[in-house]
């Protein structure tokens, strides 16, 4: 592992670092940051959010941690049960009650420019965010994690070639490639999920590979080998349990990144087709009324902000708990 860690102990960096970064990457701390490529990369916020705090502050963090968890639970629950909740039809227009302010009769959060209930649209929009983020992260995590585990375990030229190819994908600026691909494959929930999922494969592969490299050198792997365990058994029985948690913690932070990405696409009108509500498209619609009524844009924006914030926070806390380096594994 790089010697830079010895000289700069407080630098909290993810366990994605190693000695050979194929696409002409720099050495030392630069390499540690070079692994975080395009905008799809979840590791950047994770790295920067980690702060070594005092005992008093960590107790404060504990309260916020539970608040964040509760908020996320509410969002997930509402998204899952939106069809059965006593909500108005998110697409039903009520042109008499256009732009009703929050807390008005029958519309707790008011109505939008076509008189549609904002609360209902938020609930159904949460569904889009949830589906895209969870499935895209799962795809990235499964495919990338498997690739990373395999190349980190078997090494050799196969590893060099694979990592080089994955780095080429990271050489594209994330959102630009995403936009280009959406233009070609079309806009649907499935297409967007697949594109985002596969674009994030390199990141997970890097995390999984770096963690595998570290785990493969442990004594218990040597012990297993001495006992005559097969490659498969070592990979899945000894190494996988140590790789899965760090990768999953990165995946959690990535949820927030994907929610933002989908929001940006929706804001540009490139996510799922109208009139299906998504948070991003609600913000985009609210923008047209910004000079007269602000709640149209700011309520969905606040919900999205709180959700991403909560995901970042929970992900950050869990990540620092499962980080190979911090737990001195």
């Amino acid at each position, binding site marked *: 592992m790089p010697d830079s860690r010895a000289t700069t102990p407080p630098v909290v960096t993810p366990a994605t670092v190693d000695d050979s970064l194929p696409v002409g990457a720099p050495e030392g701390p630069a390499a540690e940051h070079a692994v975080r490529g395009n905008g799809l990369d979840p590791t950047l916020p994770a790295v920067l959010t980690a*702060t070594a705090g005092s005992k008093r502050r960590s107790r404060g963090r504990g309260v916020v941690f539970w608040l964040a968890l509760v908020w996320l639970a509410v969002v997930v629950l509402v998204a899952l049960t939106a069809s059965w909740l006593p909500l108005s039809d998110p697409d039903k227009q009520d042109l008499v009650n256009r732009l009703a302010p929050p807390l008005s009769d029958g519309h707790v959060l008011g109505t939008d420019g076509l008189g549609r209930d904002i609360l209902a649209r938020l609930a159904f929009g949460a569904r889009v965010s949830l589906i895209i983020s969870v499935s895209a992260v799962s795809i990235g995590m499964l495919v990338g994690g498997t690739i990373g585990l395999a190349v980190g375990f078997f090494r050799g030229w196969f590893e060099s070639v694979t990592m080089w190819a994955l780095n080429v994908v990271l050489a594209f600026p994330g959102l630009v490639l995403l936009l*280009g691909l959406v233009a070609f494959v079309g806009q649907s929930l499935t297409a967007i999920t697949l594109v985002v999922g596969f674009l994030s494969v390199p990141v997970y592969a890097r995390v999984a590979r770096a963690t595998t490299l570290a785990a493969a050198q442990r004594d218990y792997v040597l012990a297993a080998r001495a006992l005559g365990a097969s490659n498969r058994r070592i990979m899945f029985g000894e190494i996988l349990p140590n790789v899965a948690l760090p990768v999953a913690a990165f995946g959690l932070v990535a949820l927030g990144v994907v929610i933002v990405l989908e929001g940006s696409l929706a804001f540009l009108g490139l996510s799922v087709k109208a009139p299906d509500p998504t948070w991003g498209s609600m913000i985009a619609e609210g923008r047209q009324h910004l000079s007269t009524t602000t709640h149209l844009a700011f309520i969905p924006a606040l919900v999205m902000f709180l959700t991403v*914030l909560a995901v970042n926070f929970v992900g950050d806390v869990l990540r620092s708990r499962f980080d190979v380096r911090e737990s001195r594994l």
Partner: protein
Amino acid sequence: MGRLIALKALSLVPVLLAVSCLTFLMLNLLPGCVECQVLGPDNLDNPEAVAAVRADLRLDDPLPVRYGAWLGDALTGDLGRSYVTRQDVTDAIRERLPVTLEIMALSMVLALVISIPLGMATAYRAGGLLDRSVTGATFGMLAVPSFMMALLLIYLFAVELDWFPATGWTYLTDDPVENLRSAFMPALSLALVNVAIFTRLLRTDMIATLQDDHVLLARSKGLPTWRILTRHALRPSSFSLLTVSGLAIGNLLGGAVIVEQLFALPGMGRLLFDAIFRRDLMVVQGVVLVITVGFVIANGVVDVLYSVLDPRIRQRSPSHA
């Protein structure tokens, strides 16, 4: 040094080739015929147009030959022609590029100007009131996408205060002051996420540097704090900041699509966005290629700069550089 640059440039060649290959394949491996994708459903009945596209894109040649021809054209500055607007793709890009570059440069300058003092101040009194509030605020800023930030700024500075124009662009050559006014809000909305990232990064690195012996020596010599921070601690703390600035260019490019759309700026992002909506695939291909090549080269330059700043890297074996 020259050797280092040459090696770096050489190592970028295969990456650029692979990137161009992927961009080329995006258009050519789509389901359905290429001319259907390029022309769109409206023009397919016109046999002359179909024949023209087939000849232009050499669709009768095998894939590798087509790639070679396309790459050769791209290298000489010919990215084809839009079949929707009839405009030359290279001309369209040349028209739009300065606007995006200006926004990006301004945004980067803003981000660095805000985050470097903040990072130094928070690192110097780590754990203090300023540090805690800035660290908290930047954590929040990481959760604000650039389109949300842009919306907030529009609401605050254009709708409520009326200080800056909400949309529109004035060219630098027409009126420099108005140009800055129209560029300020887009640049700021892209900069704020980077402010959060840069500040946190510099703070962490700076805290480490401030524990070094050379800082202790400077302090014992009685040098004033600002001098220690700027002259002795900033440079050794800025390496990761430099690298991340290079990577931030990628996010700026993506963010440019959004803010150019929001503020109605005639830049590359807008070109890409409009092309996507018109399904003008030749333009999409050209813009993605130019943006990506620019991003790869920019990061290559950052890598070289990195070893200029840090002599320790120069002394290592050049194969690693």
